[in-house]
């Protein structure tokens, strides 16, 4: 007797699938309804665009229930969970594989759509049909992929001859089949960073659909004003924050799990996620200019379209198997459909953009390259330069293979050499732009503001030079980072000082109020400070990382920098979730004083026959001591081999990331004035409703 899915499991699976199908129908209905030129139809379309979120929430809850309770008769549950996995990994396995993560993606997309639909549309009524159509077409596409090609509710069926197939419907002559246990999640993904890294990345990726929808709606409606920009800016900032967080967590995961002492490998998939970040960052800068001076409208429209196009392209490249990478998903049939969607979206967007090009004329002209506007434009051009370098690096292997038959990959050295100098120029602009005046920029005036912080920042490389550090790249990089720090901190100081004088309050009191009153400006400066800390960290680990390796017998030691590591013992034991752990004990002393014990280990997952090297790290503010157990003799006493890195300043990178995210939160948070107007609007609406009902 072959085991089949239990009745509750069967019901859950069918309920989830039905909810997903209904969500699809509702989204399908919303499109023609939104296009009717009638307020009642538009209201109906709005409801139909909100409904998928409710339905998909139910479907996701069903799938979570199936994952949690081990319904191994479902293809997806079987592939990503096993009995040995703890409950939280079974729940987060929702995004552990292709089908589940696409489904999760649909759910987040429906959530964003519902949030957009729930907003007050009074002032942008003519944008509403366009926004609804773009959001629902996107949702239909992804939901269609899930239902037709990558269905997480697919059941397993077994033929009498023994072949197992998967599908929604029972193929003729087969029986339902529920194995006793699943295959389990890829061990590399069983890490806390992996639990939150994908959702953050997805929230970031999908979030860009909202500003894109507003941009397209504005193009279609032929709007000349900045309404779409006002709405889009905060959505972009929100998506950008999630994407930044996703990238940071991904770096942390690589550092903790992949065991090569690095955090960023210029892997094609990393770059695919980095490219929309670049264009979104450029957009967030140039959008300021459009708001203040009515310029760069072409830029802003192009940037937001490009950001979303890069999101879709990046997702397509990763999920279709076109790019091979550690991150790649298993190949599937979604490639051609995804390609068609990318092509359609890109062509429609470009066509609309070119058609409306004239409408997007700027209100003002650029007067000087040394004005604030000029420097912001330069900043955007540099971001585009980095994007071009990245895009070329990703496409080059594909192009070279098509034309020569030889696949020539470009590695980290290419990216470091091409983007390194551009990042340096960006830092310089970050230091100079806040000093420049709007409109008129005179070299002499800028020079007067610039020389003091420049000189002050020069103290850092000068001190390091005296201490014996002579690498020009490091000295230049540190000078630039210090320059940005000086200029930014001075901006905070100057603002707080002026406010203190004006309000006759204390300095710190004024400082807090200054930031709270100008969240965008000072949130932005906080982000700059985060970037400075990250720059210190990146310079530290990239230019001053040292490494060594040695095979040690018990009691022997190796030295690196100021550290001595003594190899004390090696044990091998099984863990409860079916892996075998081999763990070494090392005694670490610094300048002769014992500071800690480290336990680098290798976990071997017997079910998937996959090893995982887990580094042991002694982490301090100036540097990390990062130890890997790379090999050992079976007897243990014969010797074990360790690879040891000293990563200077790497913690500054993580700390900088934290400051960066805090700054983004400050900038994203609505200012009190806006909250007030929102509250007023709500009150007005209430009054209106009351008067209507009173009238009735």
């Amino acid at each position, binding site marked *: 007797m072959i085991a089949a899915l239990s009745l509750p499991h069967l019901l859950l699976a069918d309920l989830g699938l039905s909810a997903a199908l209904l969500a699809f129908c509702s989204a399908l209905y919303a499109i023609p309804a939104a296009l009717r030129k009638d307020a009642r139809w538009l209201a109906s379309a709005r409801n139909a665009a909100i409904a998928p979120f409710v339905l998909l929430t139910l479907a996701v809850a069903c799938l979570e229930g199936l994952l949690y309770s081990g319904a191994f008769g479902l293809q997806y549950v079987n592939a990503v969970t096993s009995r040995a996995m703890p409950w939280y990994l079974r729940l987060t396995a929702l995004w552990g594989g292709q089908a589940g993560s696409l489904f999760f993606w649909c759910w987040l997309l429906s959530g964003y759509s519902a949030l957009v639909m729930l907003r007050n549309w009074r002032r942008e009524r003519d944008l509403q049909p366009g926004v609804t159509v773009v959001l629902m077409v996107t949702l239909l596409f992804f939901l269609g992929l899930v239902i037709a090609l990558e269905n997480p509710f697919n059941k397993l069926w077994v033929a009498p001859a023994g072949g197992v197939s998967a599908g929604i419907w029972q193929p003729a002559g087969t029986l339902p089949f529920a194995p006793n246990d699943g295959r389990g999640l890829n061990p*590399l993904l069983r890490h806390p960073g992996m639990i939150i890294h994908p959702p953050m990345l997805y929230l970031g990726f999908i979030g860009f659909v909202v500003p894109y929808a507003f941009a397209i709606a504005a193009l279609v409606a032929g709007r000349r004003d900045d309404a779409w920009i006002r709405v889009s800016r905060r959505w972009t900032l929100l998506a950008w924050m999630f994407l930044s967080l996703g990238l940071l967590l991904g770096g942390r995961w690589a550092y903790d799990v*992949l*065991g*090569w002492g*690095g955090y960023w*490998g210029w*892997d094609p998939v990393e770059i695919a996620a980095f490219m929309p970040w670049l264009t979104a960052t450029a957009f967030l800068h140039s959008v300021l200019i459009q708001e203040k001076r009515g310029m760069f409208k072409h830029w802003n429209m192009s940037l937001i379209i490009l950001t979303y196009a890069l999101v879709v*392209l990046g997702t*397509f490249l990763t999920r*279709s*198997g*076109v790019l*091979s990478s*550690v991150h790649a998903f298993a*190949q599937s049939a979604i*490639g*051609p459909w995804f*390609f068609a969607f*990318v092509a359609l979206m*890109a*062509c429609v967007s*470009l066509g609309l953009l*070119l058609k409306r*090009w*004239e409408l997007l*004329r*700027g*209100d*003002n*002209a*650029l*007067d*000087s*390259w040394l004005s604030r506007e000029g420097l912001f434009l330069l900043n955007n051009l540099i971001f585009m330069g980095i994007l071009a370098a990245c895009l070329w690096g990703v*496409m080059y292997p*594909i192009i070279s*293979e*098509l034309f020569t*038959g*030889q*696949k*020539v*990959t470009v*590695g*980290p050295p290419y990216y470091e050499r091409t983007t390194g100098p551009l990042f340096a120029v960006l830092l310089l602009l970050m230091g100079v732009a806040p000093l420049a005046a709007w409109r008129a920029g005179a070299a002499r005036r800028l020079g007067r503001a610039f020389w003091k912080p420049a000189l002050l920042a020069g103290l850092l490389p000068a001190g390091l030079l005296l201490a014996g550090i002579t690498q020009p790249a490091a000295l230049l990089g540190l000078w630039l980072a210090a320059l940005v720090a000086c200029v930014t901190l001075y901006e905070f100081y100057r603002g707080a000082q002026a406010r203190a004088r004006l309000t006759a309050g204390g300095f710190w009191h004024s400082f807090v109020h200054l930031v709270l009153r100008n969240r965008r400006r000072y949130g932005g400066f906080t982000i700059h400070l985060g970037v400075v800390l990250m720059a210190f960290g990146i310079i530290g680990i990239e230019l001053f990382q040292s*490494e*060594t*390796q*040695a*095979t040690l017998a018990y009691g022997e030691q190796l030295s690196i920098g100021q550290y001595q590591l003594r190899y004390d013992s090696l044990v091998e034991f099984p863990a409860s979730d079916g892996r075998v752990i081999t763990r070494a004990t090392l005694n670490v002393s610094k300048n002769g004083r014992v500071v800690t014990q480290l336990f680098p280990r290798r976990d*071997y997952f017997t079910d998937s*026959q*996959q*090893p995982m090297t887990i580094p042991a790290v002694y982490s301090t503010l100036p540097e990390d001591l990062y130890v*890997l157990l*790379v*090999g050992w*003799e079976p007897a243990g006493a014969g010797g074990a*081999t360790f*690879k040891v890195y000293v990563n200077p300043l790497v913690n500054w990178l993580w700390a900088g990331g934290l400051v960066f995210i805090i700054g983004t939160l400050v900038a994203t948070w609505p200012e009190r004035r806006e909250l007030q107007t929102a509250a007023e609007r709500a009150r007005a609406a209430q009054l209106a409703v009351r008067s209507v009902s009173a009238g009735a």
Partner: protein
Amino acid sequence: MTGAEAPLLAATPAGLARRWQLLAWLLLLALLAVVGAKLVQVSRGSATSGAAPLFTLASFDGTQHTLQAYRGKIVVVNFWASWCAPCAAEAADLEQTWQAYRERGVVFLGVDYVDTEPEARAFIELWQQTYPNGPDRGTVIAQAFRIRGVPETYIIDQRGQLQAPIIGPTNRAQLSAVLDRLLAQP
């Protein structure tokens, strides 16, 4: 207004010039064409099962070796490291086997796993290995093959199919047996 005071960017450009529009379309279509062609290639390649993961190895002498370029030939992929004692034990056999089979179109690639370059070069010098060897940067290749440790040897046949992996040190007799069998295949 004199010429010197003219704005750097005109405030009111008319519609975008036709040649720029054309350029934008050409760029987009070229990008789509390249990606589309690659997609067709990938979907063809995945038709068979048991295909070896594709990788690119940059050898220590700076040459790039891609697995796809060797389609039609037998490829022996050996994972090793300078710190690994069993790797030293098999090194001479690997070199001898390669010398014996290189004329018959068998390719050997040495993948150096979690190592430092000076030690790795010294190892190659010591064992006089003449076939291409290169570092596995970021352990990308090792992860693609899901290796369990070093040494491990994977043999890929003329059609890119993986044969049973050899876990642990190998020797000339073992390698010859597999290679002879594959070479005898039509």
